[in-house]
């Protein structure tokens, strides 16, 4: 922890030094103190919390919908290996499409509201989650499945009592990847078409008004939010999947 703090403090000191010496134009690199001041101003005088709330709302609704579809579907096709061979190519193809590319299509379909942004987050994350889950489910130990079958478990019981739990470690990895993807998609779509609230549109506003400290503050804020989401997931994972690294 101390080592991590030291590296962050060193980075800030180096940043301050670079801006003090004016080696880099302040238009491109704002001083840390100006960034902190700007952050304080944004928190006090603007709707920053509403921006954060709207961005998080889009991410969570999109990712949650993707989990609700991708995990059960991935488990089903991963369990039935013959089905997985049919879907593998399609999933790999969908996973390879940059989600932002379908944003214009989402705008045409759902209009300029939140639905189009959430739709793109859902599209980008569901392919990732289905793929991760199906991969995990198709690699569940045959011994574990056979032992349950011999003990009298039916197909659906094997699916939700064995395959699901045995795949949980990889499903959580998929959720973490999907959330990172969700943050990127949500913010980029906010930047593409103006929306009243959202961190992406706030960054774009700052760029249009040449407000470099605000851009830096918002970039750091998004980084902190992403890190907090990731750490929270890691914590949940360590509590939920207690057998990880122990078998």
């Amino acid at each position, binding site marked *: 922890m101390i080592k991590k703090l030291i590296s962050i403090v060193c980075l800030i000191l180096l940043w301050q030094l670079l801006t003090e010496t004016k080696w880099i134009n302040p238009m491109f690199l704002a001083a840390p103190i100006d960034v902190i001041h700007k952050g304080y101003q944004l928190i006090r005088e603007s709707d920053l919390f509403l921006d954060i709330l709207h961005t998080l709302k889009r991410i969570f609704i999109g990712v949650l919908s993707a989990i609700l579809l991708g995990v059960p579907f991935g488990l089903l096709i991963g369990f039935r290996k013959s089905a997985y061979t049919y879907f593998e190519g399609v999933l790999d193809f969908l996973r390879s499409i940059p989600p932002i590319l379908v944003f214009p299509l989402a705008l045409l379909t759902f209009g300029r509201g939140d639905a189009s942004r959430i739709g793109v987050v859902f599209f980008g994350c569901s392919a990732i989650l289905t793929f991760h889950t199906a991969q995990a489910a198709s690699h569940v*130990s045959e011994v574990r499945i*056979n032992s349950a079958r011999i*003990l009298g478990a039916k197909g659906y019981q094997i699916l939700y*009592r064995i395959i699901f739990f045995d795949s949980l470690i990889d499903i959580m990895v998929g959720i973490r990847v999907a959330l990172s993807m969700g943050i990127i998609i949500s913010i980029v779509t906010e930047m593409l078409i103006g929306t009243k609230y959202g961190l992406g549109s706030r960054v774009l506003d700052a760029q249009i008004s040449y407000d470099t400290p605000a851009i830096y503050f918002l970039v750091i804020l998004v980084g902190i939010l992403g890190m907090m989401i990731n750490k929270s997931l890691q914590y949940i994972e360590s509590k939920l999947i207690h057998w990880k690294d122990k078998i």
Partner: protein
Amino acid sequence: MSIEVNGIRKSIVSAKKTKELIFDNLSFQVRDSEVVGIYGPNGCGKTTLLNMIAGISKPDSGEIKVAGENPGVHTISYIFQEYKRSLYPWMTVRDNIAFPLIIMKLSKQEIAQRMEKIIDIVKLPFSLDKYPYELSGGQQQYVAILRGLISSPSAILMDEPFSAMDYSNTIWLAEKMNEIFQTIQIPVVMVAHNLDQLMMIAYRVWFMSEKPCTILEEKVLKSFAVSW
């Protein structure tokens, strides 16, 4: 209740993509309360034989009967070599043992009664609230055996149950197994490629040949005074 194998024939496709005959007209019988050890070279088909008795795979021809029925009709307890993979690490020891009853959708009260009954007989030396990964190898395999026994199986099949264990765990588990097999009245088949391990448990040992696998010789190790 017994295991009867009558004239089974089984071929498999080998790694070289050629068809290999592993059993040709194999017949035997394992009676109630009898522990039979099967000893043979690696790859002779011992595990395939257990899989056929368990109903995981089928013989090409011939007949297998467990307690008078085809494999898969009656519950069979199958103890795998890889005990870590056969147990469910997300469940406590209690839930692992009760798993066959949970999937049979028995009431909580009935599950508790059956658990109490089995715990009374075996006197577990560890807490039921632990997770499998908190136990030693021998204790984990013991949990797998108890899980197989709780649903009153018609037969017990054991595939190299000691192979992933150290000596002290093997001795401890062999003692526990002997205690159990003396109290239950069902046929037990144990496969191993270590004769010492078989001799600790089995009443009779069959020495198997290379493929196609046949019983070369039988050694009676214990003259068991049971009712059959």
